[in-house]
């Protein structure tokens, strides 16, 4: 009973090894091609000081992917959204996705708070633009 199974599993192992080999070769080629020139984003002045490690970017990506899924975006949309983000943007999201400003709705009760603020501002009780 086990003999044919053993034979099958041997074929299967060969098959898997074959796939892994092809994948590794492809990976190597992709790596070489992308290493040829350095992206401008990695060279802009503001980033030159920071060590934008490849490892950090991969961690950020995994982190943002998990958070986006958790926050109710379906898997296919997550991939497409991640694709348009730069390393720096990925990092921003990884750090601050929970608390960064999220523009949404204006409801009445909040509008009321804002109106009070505006009254204070317009009547000169406060002046948030005062130059100190």
């Amino acid at each position, binding site marked *: 009973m086990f003999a044919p199974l053993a034979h099958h599993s041997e074929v299967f192992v060969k098959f898997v090894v074959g796939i892994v080999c092809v994948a590794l070769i492809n990976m190597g080629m992709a790596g*070489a091609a992308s*290493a*040829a*020139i*350095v*992206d*401008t*984003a*990695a*060279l*802009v*002045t*503001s980033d*030159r000081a*920071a*060590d*934008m*490690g*490849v490892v950090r970017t991969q961690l950020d990506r995994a982190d943002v992917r998990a958070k*986006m899924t958790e*926050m*109710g*975006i379906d898997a296919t*949309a997550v991939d*497409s*959204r991640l*694709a*348009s*983000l*730069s390393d*720096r*943007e990925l990092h*921003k*999201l990884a750090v601050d*996705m929970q608390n*960064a*400003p*999220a*523009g*949404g*709705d*204006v409801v*009445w*009760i*909040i*509008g*009321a*708070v*804002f*109106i*009070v*603020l*505006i*009254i204070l*501002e*317009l*009547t*000169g009780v406060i002046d*948030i*633009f005062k130059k100190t």
Partner: protein
Amino acid sequence: MEKRAAARAARFAFFAASLLLLTACVTREPFIPANLPAGAHRQVELAATPFFPQKKYQCGPAALAAVLGASDVGVTADELVPVVYLPARHGSLQVEMQAAPRKFGRLAYPLSRNLESVIAELNAGRPVLVLHNYGLPSWPRWHYAVVIGYDSASDEFILRSGKKRRTEWRARTFMVAWHNGGRWAMVVLRPGEIPASADPTLYLDAAAEFERTAKPEDSRLAFDAAIRRWPDQPVAWIGRGTAEYRAGRFANAARDYGAAVRLDPENAGARNNLAQSLLDLGCPAHAREQLAALKIDTLASPLREAVLDTHRHIDAAMSTSPVVDASKCSPQP
């Protein structure tokens, strides 16, 4: 029931406020006249800006669809929901609002945090997407809206916001919401367009992020415009060089990277990319000269790995192929 009571309270506050506004409007200085850039119109309204009334919490997709539409991208607010809306946050994040236009071959440029930049963009015919805070700095309630114009005489801004196609805002009211929201604003640019109020660092950062997913031809347009505006910025030349390289025009790439190296001889990325272009042109000896000028040990990762990699390719080429035509190895500016 509770909701209705809240609405009634809010309406009362609104009427009280309106009364006060009427009595108070003469007491403060106007904003717009003091922030008009030289040569700006006294009055602008970009009436052709499309409008998408927002659905619950979805002012992000609605505002983005409007500024993309003004830049000739035909996309609806609904189509942008899966692109920028974050259900658990009941809103959209600035980072994603800024990244989304790249999907449509457009750059997002975040404006400098002053009113003059906003007015300058409106004068250049570009509606401005802004982030407002209608709460308090310590209790923020965020909202995206699109500024489509202003009137200097009445000191008012004209907005597309929420469910309102056209709404006029007293400049001071607008400023309170914008100021408390961190004065964040962005415009959408076609490749090759430079913002009226452009700052080289902000623009080149935006273009560099655009490059990763853009077609080489679009990327070339974006950096080409930067070179014309700021010919002494090495990053502008590097960006155009990379676009040329990706299009397979190695001689043009070497010319642009060469210009960047002349402007900034310490720029390891420019030298690495120049070396790689020279190698692709069949000039490994010239390529090696470029890398010889670098102190590889002092470079940060992953730039160091890229340079070491280029080194290996050059060594391999040196041992196999002799130089065929040395004349193309010294690209002229």
